[in-house]
């Protein structure tokens, strides 16, 4: 009943020491469900939030999908939401002193989904990037 947000497996990213890279995480919600965007229209709504919690990369700006304004039977005004497949990009810097070889950058994606009649408890799902640092 509660929708599961699917995170697309990301191919191994080759990253050169001292360089910058923009890496995109793709996620998909099942049809009929929506999640609040990172900038919901109501202060009580829980925003889509990506957090990088560990790994060799230095985290820069995170760019969220622009929410689409959707009207639902339970909302008097349109809500800023994401639906279907969406992407979140993060700018990373590879430290010059990073260890060479395989590594992982770990994070979490928090979302709160609803359909047009009910809402589901906020969920936090793990996100992992496979890296090959050169």
């Amino acid at each position, binding site marked *: 009943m509660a929708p599961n947000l699917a995170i697309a497996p990301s191919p191994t990213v080759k990253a050169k020491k001292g360089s910058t890279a923009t890496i995109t995480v793709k996620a998909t919600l099942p049809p009929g469900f929506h999640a609040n965007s990172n900038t919901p229209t109501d202060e009580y709504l829980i925003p889509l939030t990506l957090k990088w919690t560990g790994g060799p990369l230095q985290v820069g700006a995170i760019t969220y999908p622009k929410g689409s304004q959707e009207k639902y039977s339970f909302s008097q005004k349109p809500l800023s939401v994401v639906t279907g497949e969406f992407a979140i990009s993060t700018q990373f810097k590879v430290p010059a002193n990073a260890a060479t070889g395989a590594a992982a950058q770990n994070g979490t994606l928090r979302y709160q989904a609803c359909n047009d*009649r009910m809402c589901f408890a906020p969920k936090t799902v793990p996100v992992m990037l496979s890296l090959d640092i050169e």
Partner: protein
Amino acid sequence: MWKSHLRYAVIAGVAALLGVVACSPSHPPRPAAKKANNRKPAPNFALKDASGKVVQLADYKGKVVLLDFWATWCGPCKIEIPWFTEFQRKYKDRGFEVLGVSMDDDGWKSVTPFVAEKKINYRIVMGNDETGDQFGGLEALPTTFVIDRSGRIASVHVGLTNKKDFSDAIEELLEDPVQSARSATVGFNRGGANGAQPGHRAEPHS
């Protein structure tokens, strides 16, 4: 001629469709609340309200209770809350109470300003996963139980529900003299699990 036949065919089709809908076994007149002998005891709980006072569901024995599991982040809950505020005002003197159980993770930090902003006139307590499990594992909000004077679940509403479905259930329970008489002998399930067994959703009334 052909047009005339077509017109009759369309009229007959619509009439047949209306007849099917009207007579369909999937659309029988539905009572607002389950029959008394089909109701199961509501699990008791002890949760704190905003003042820190411990509130037990069993404290409400003898009253018809609308038990609303909700959260500040739940849009459909915000549609129903003004109805519940109205019900609290309208039916309070007839032995009725609304009890809201917030499922907000961050507790009173979000709930206190929300309650003030929405002018909620009924008691709110802070729920947790255990409370949700007692009531069958609340997978979605809002989930609302209408409980009779004997502490038994008369109807369950998962998701945004028609206001009339609630008011019909409440009125039916308030007007049932049998329930008033039985309230002295049937109580809440203090053990927790029951008609809404942990891991088993209570049958939604929708």
